[in-house]
């Protein structure tokens, strides 16, 4: 597994302090993050691949400072957004998956082979030439996963990846995430999803207020909500 380190990280949007002095040392395989709306979860995970640069402190992935080596880090960290529509960047399903592999010094044949393999793995090979935006919601989220995993990142970060899905698709995506051999960081409001995780972190008002096994962290979180 990789190591993700937050060293006294603070961040503000304008006047508003969103994260305050976060210190985390993440080495477990499956890490869950929960917390109320606006507590700072999305900001926290966006820091991991440099979509946001911290105002103070440093975030490192395997010793690499994210703010300074964003490009290198992003090859290690795949990111899944809540809304799959936002992450589709190419017109058709296959092209969108292949897009991730650009500029990695692969031959066109290697790109085609790996794209095809990724599509098969997620049951999308039937739709390779389909306009990506016309897939169903669940299929779009599968496409997002395929497009991220085709590059074989060491870490997969997902920010509420099942919010838009029905119960069946939501379970499917969850199982896929749990089945990955990579290190996985998932933000979610669906607490039952986290039962098998190795570590759960509870964020409240920009600070870590619990950091424990799922059972302990979730009961702390439920206490907070009550």
């Amino acid at each position, binding site marked *: 597994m990789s190591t993700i380190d937050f060293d006294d990280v603070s961040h503000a949007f304008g006047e508003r302090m969103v994260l305050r002095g976060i210190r985390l040392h993440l080495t477990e395989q499956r890490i869950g993050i929960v917390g109320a709306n606006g507590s700072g979860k999305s900001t926290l995970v966006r820091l991991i*691949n*440099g*979509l946001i640069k911290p105002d103070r402190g440093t975030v490192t992935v395997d010793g690499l400072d994210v703010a300074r080596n964003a*490009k290198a880090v*992003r*090859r290690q960290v*795949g*990111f899944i*957004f809540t809304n799959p*529509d*936002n*992450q*589709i*960047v*190419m*017109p058709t399903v296959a092209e969108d998956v292949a*897009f*991730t592999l*650009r*500029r990695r010094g692969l031959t066109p044949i290697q790109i085609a082979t790996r794209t095809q393999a990724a599509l098969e793995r997620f049951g999308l090979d039937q739709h390779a030439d389909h306009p990506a*935006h016309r897939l169903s919601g669940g299929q779009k989220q599968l496409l997002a996963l395929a*497009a*991220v995993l085709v*590059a074989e990142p060491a870490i997969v970060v997902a920010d509420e990846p099942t919010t838009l899905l029905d119960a069946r698709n939501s379970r499917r995506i969850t199982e896929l995430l749990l089945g990955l051999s990579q290190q996985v960081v998932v933000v979610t409001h669906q607490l039952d999803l986290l039962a098998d995780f190795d570590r759960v972190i509870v964020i409240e008002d920009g600070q870590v207020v619990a950091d424990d096994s799922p059972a302990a962290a979730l009961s702390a979180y439920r206490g907070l909500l009550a």
Partner: protein
Amino acid sequence: MIGLYSPGHSLVHRAPMLLKLVLLSFAVLGVGLLGELWQLSLCLFAVAALFLVARIPLGAAWKQIGPILWILVVAVPLQALFAGWATAGLMAGRLLIAVALAALFTLTTTVTAVLEGSQKLLRPLRRWVDADRVGLLLALTLRCIPLVAEIVTEVIEARRARGTQGSLLALAVPVVVRSLYAADAIGEALAARGLDD
């Protein structure tokens, strides 16, 4: 809808939009017919007086007229070279007056007034043009500008997250495609709110 409007209550501000537009067109035409420098200078004074009457702040006026002065700095010598200084001076004077008058119109007329005025202008054409739809389109476009800006931001973020900055092409394609799908959704919302096909 603020646009370039410079708020005020002067005579120039309160004059009906269509009247201002007609006067503006005649003035520009008329100035084009003047052949003597002294006539143009008089007109220039008249225009300056109008700016004073309308109490246009110096900065706002400069923002509109400044650019044309720069153009003149380059164009007048060039023209003098081909046609002599007298012609160059005439051309410069006419241009300056026309630009200043048009700027005055823009600065003293709200966008809403212009849009309502043009809907009135379109009324005689109602057999061919639906003025109401034209108004809708104009407002819809203003609504869509921030929407497009948002789409651009989201696409840039998505590309960044996938570690590929990509070319201009890899930005333009998703922006255009997502804009089109957003247009579909907006079209549907318009229909649902009673705008029939």
